[in-house]
C-alpha cells in the first residue's frame, strides 16, 4: 500500500493543470459539464494533441507516450475538473485506439492511430440498437462479404456524437447462422460515416439536447481491411473493451462543476442573514456528496492501478462504474434541491445561478446509470464474475 504519486506524476498533473487553465482562460472553447459526451471542439482537441495529451497510455511504438493508466486518470481528473471539451477525441483515445492496438491489423494501425493521436478524426461508437440495449447479443445489423467489401445493413441507436463523427466503431453480425453462439457471430469494424448509405438522424434527449442519433445503414460498402481483429470474434473483443470503457473517471467527474457551483451557491447566498452554508442540513447533504465523490475517486484510481499491473479489472470496473454513476445520478438532484427554486432555472434563463448548470445536469442525470452498461446489468456482472454467485450447486 502506497498511495503516493510519483514525482513524475505530480509534475505531470501540474503540466495538465497549466494546459487546461491556459486553454480555459482563452475563453474560446466551450468548457462545461458532460464534456466528454457533449462538448466537442476539434480545435481544442488539436491543442490537446499538440501537448501530447492524446494517446498517453498507448505504447510508444504506436505513437503513444507509454504512460500508465493512473497517469491517464491524473490527466482526465484535471481535464474534467475544469470541464474541458474533450468529446472530439475522447472515444477514439479511450476506446478505438486501444481496440486497434490490441486487435487491429497493421493497416488499421497505420491508417488511424496517427490521425487519432493528432485529433484529425472523430469516432463514434455503434453498439446499441433498438432491440439491443442491455442485450448486445440481440444486434441485428449485418455485414455480408461481397468481394473486397462487407455490405452493411441495419440500424444503430443512442449514438453519441454520430452527427459529428468521421468514423464509427461498429459491432455487426457477420455470421447469420442462428445456431451459432453470440461469441462466434459478431465482428467489429470501422465504418466511414461519409459512406453512401449511411444516414444519421438526430435524437433529442429528454434534457432537450441533441447528443444522440439514430444511424441507418443501407447497403453500406465497408472495405474488408476495416474489419478489426478476427472475423466473428467481435463479441469477445467488445467485452474486453467494455471493461476499459467502464474504468474511467468520466463516470464520476463529468459533472464535478455542479458540485463546485453548489458549494459556491450556498456560500454566497444567505437566508435570514446567515449563509446557507451554515445550515446543518445543507452542510450534511453536501458533505455526503463530497464523501461519495472522494470514495469514488479512490476507487477509480484503484481500478487504474490494477490496469497498470496488467490485470483485467472485469468486475472491479463494473463495480466502480456502478458506484460512480449512482453518485452522479444523485449529485444534480441534491444540488437543485439545496439551491431551491433558483436551482430549477435553465441555461439562458435570467437569474439562473451558474447559468442553470444544476438544472441542466438534473435533466441529463437519468442517463448516467444507463450509458455504457445499465447499473442492474453491471451488478449482475459483479455478482457473477466477481462474487461467483448463481452457479448451480447440488
Amino acid at each position, binding site marked *: 500500500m502506497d498511495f503516493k504519486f510519483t514525482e513524475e506524476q505530480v509534475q505531470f498533473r501540474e503540466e495538465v493543470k497549466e494546459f487546461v487553465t491556459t486553454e480555459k482562460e482563452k475563453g474560446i472553447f466551450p468548457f462545461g459539464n458532460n464534456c466528454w459526451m457533449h462538448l466537442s471542439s476539434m480545435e481544442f482537441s488539436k491543442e490537446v494533441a499538440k501537448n501530447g495529451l492524446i494517446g498517453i497510455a498507448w505504447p510508444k511504438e504506436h505513437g503513444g507516450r507509454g504512460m500508465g493508466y493512473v497517469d491517464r486518470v491524473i490527466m482526465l481528473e484535471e481535464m474534467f475538473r475544469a470541464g474541458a471539451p474533450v468529446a472530439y477525441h475522447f472515444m477514439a483515445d479511450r476506446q478505438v485506439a486501444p481496440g486497434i492496438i490490441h486487435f487491429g491489423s497493421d493497416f488499421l494501425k497505420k491508417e488511424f492511430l496517427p490521425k487519432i493521436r493528432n485529433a484529425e478524426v472523430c469516432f463514434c461508437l455503434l453498439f446499441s440498437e433498438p432491440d439491443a440495449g*442491455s442485450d448486445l447479443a440481440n444486434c441485428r445489423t449485418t455485414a455480408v462479404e461481397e468481394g473486397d467489401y462487407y455490405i452493411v445493413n441495419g440500424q444503430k*441507436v443512442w449514438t453519441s456524437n454520430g452527427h459529428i463523427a468521421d468514423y464509427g466503431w461498429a459491432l455487426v453480425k457477420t455470421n447469420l447462422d442462428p445456431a451459432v453462439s453470440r461469441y462466434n457471430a459478431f465482428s467489429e469494424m470501422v465504418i466511414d460515416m461519409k459512406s453512401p448509405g449511411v444516414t444519421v438522424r438526430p*435524437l433529442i434527449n429528454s434534457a432537450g439536447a441533441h447528443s444522440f442519433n439514430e444511424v441507418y445503414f443501407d447497403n453500406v460498402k465497408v472495405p474488408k481491411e476495416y474489419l478489426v481483429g478476427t472475423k466473428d470474434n467481435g463479441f469477445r473483443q467488445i467485452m474486453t473493451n467494455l471493461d476499459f470503457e467502464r474504468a474511467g473517471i468520466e463516470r464520476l467527474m463529468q459533472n464535478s462543476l455542479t458540485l463546485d457551483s453548489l458549494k459556491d451557491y450556498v456560500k454566497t447566498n444567505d437566508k435570514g442573514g446567515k449563509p446557507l452554508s451554515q445550515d446543518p442540513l445543507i452542510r450534511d447533504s453536501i458533505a455526503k456528496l463530497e464523501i461519495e465523490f472522494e470514495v469514488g475517486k479512490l476507487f477509480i484510481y484503484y481500478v487504474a492501478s490494477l490496469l497498470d499491473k496488467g490485470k483485467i479489472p472485469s468486475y472491479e470496473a463494473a463495480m466502480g462504474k456502478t458506484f460512480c454513476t449512482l453518485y452522479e445520478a444523485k449529485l444534480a438532484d441534491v444540488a437543485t434541491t439545496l439551491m431551491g427554486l433558483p436551482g430549477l*432555472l435553465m441555461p439562458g434563463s435570467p437569474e439562473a445561478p451558474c447559468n442553470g448548470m444544476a438544472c441542466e445536469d438534473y435533466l441529463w442525470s437519468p442517463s448516467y446509470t444507463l450509458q455504457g452498461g445499465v447499473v442492474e446489468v453491471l451488478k449482475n456482472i459483479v455478482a457473477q464474475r466477481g462474487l461467483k454467485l448463481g452457479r448451480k450447486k447440488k
Partner: protein
Amino acid sequence: MDFNFNEEQQMVYDSTKKFFEKETSGTLLRELMEDDKGYSPEVWKKMAELGWMGLLFKEEYGGFEGSFLDFALILEGMGKSAMPSPFLSTVILTGLIIQDNGSEELKKEYLPKIAEGECISTLAFLGRKGLYSKSELELEAKQVNGGYRISGAASFVPYAHVADNILCAAKTTDSEGVTLFILDGKAAGIETINLHSISGKGVDCLVNFKDVQATPAQIVGEAGKGWEYIEAQWPKVAVALSCECVGGMDRVMEMTLNHVNERIQFGKPLSALQVVQHMCVDMAMKLETSRHTAHYAAWQVNEGLDCTKEAAIAKSWCGEAFKVVTKIGHQLTGGIGFSEEFDLFLYTRNAKKLELLFGDGSFQRAIVADNIGL
C-alpha cells in the same frame, strides 16, 4: 372509514380524466413548454366552462361551494395529464385568499371573474432566492399621500406575464407586517421577465416593481396581516400539489409497466426479471402510499379540520415520492425513456418542480417536527 370514491367522486375523477385525455396531447405539452404564455387559453376556457375555477367559491360570488375532495381529484387529473395552467395561482393563491380575507367589494369584483375564467391571477411573495420565508421578501410598500407605492422585486411568480391581476405581498414601512395588495397585472411600473425554468419557458416570472401605485382599497384584508393570510392557505396548496404528484406518479407507473411488459431483452420481457419486478413494486408502494396520504389530507381540509401536520406529511411524502418514481421510470425505460419522443421527461420535470414548490421535503418535515412538539 372508506378509502374508495363515492359515486360523485368517481364521476368527478372519471370526467376529469376524460377531459384531459381529450384535451391533452404530447404535441400540445411540448409546445406549451416552449410557449411564451405557458398555458393553453383554449383549454383554460373549457376548464372554466366545467366550473372548476369557481368550485371552491361561495354561490354568492359565482361559485359552487363544492367539495375540496372534488377539487383534489381535479388536481390529480391535472397532474396525471401534466397540463400546465395558472389554475392554482388563480383559484387558491388569489381567489381563496380574497374570499377568506378580502372586503365584500373585492370579493364581488374578483371572484365571479375568476369563476368564469375571465381573470388569471397570481401571487407575488418570494424574493429572488426563492425561499419561502417572510424575511426574504423583497417588495416594499411606502405610504405616500394616503396611498402606497410598491417597489422591489418578486421572483418565481407563476404566470405573472399573462396575469390580469397580481396579488402582491409587500413589507409596509409603517408596520412590522406584510400587506397584500391586489394589483392590475399591467399597472404602470410592473415589469415581468420570463424565467426559463425546468417546467418551461412561459411559467415563472421575475417581476420588477417600480413605484407601482396602490390605494388602500386594493389592500386585501387587514394591512400587516398578509403573510398570515398566505400561511393560512398553505395546507390547501400543499394538498393540491400532493394530489398533482399522485396523478403524475400514476401516469409514470402506467408507462413504465407498459414498457417493461413489452420490452424484450435477453429473450424475455424485462418484467420477468426479479430486480425489475422489485423496482416496479417500489414504484407501486410510493404511488399507493402517496395516494392515501394525499386523499386523507384533502379530506381533512374538506372537513375543516386543522391539518397543518397532515398537509406537510402529504407534501413531503408525495413530492419526494413522485421524484423517486420518475427516477425508477427512467432506469427501467432506458434510452427510450430518455428520449424526447417518450413522454416520461414531462413528468420528470414536473416532479422536480413539485418537490420544491411550497417547500421541499426538509421544509415540510420542519413543520411536522414543530407539530409533534420537538
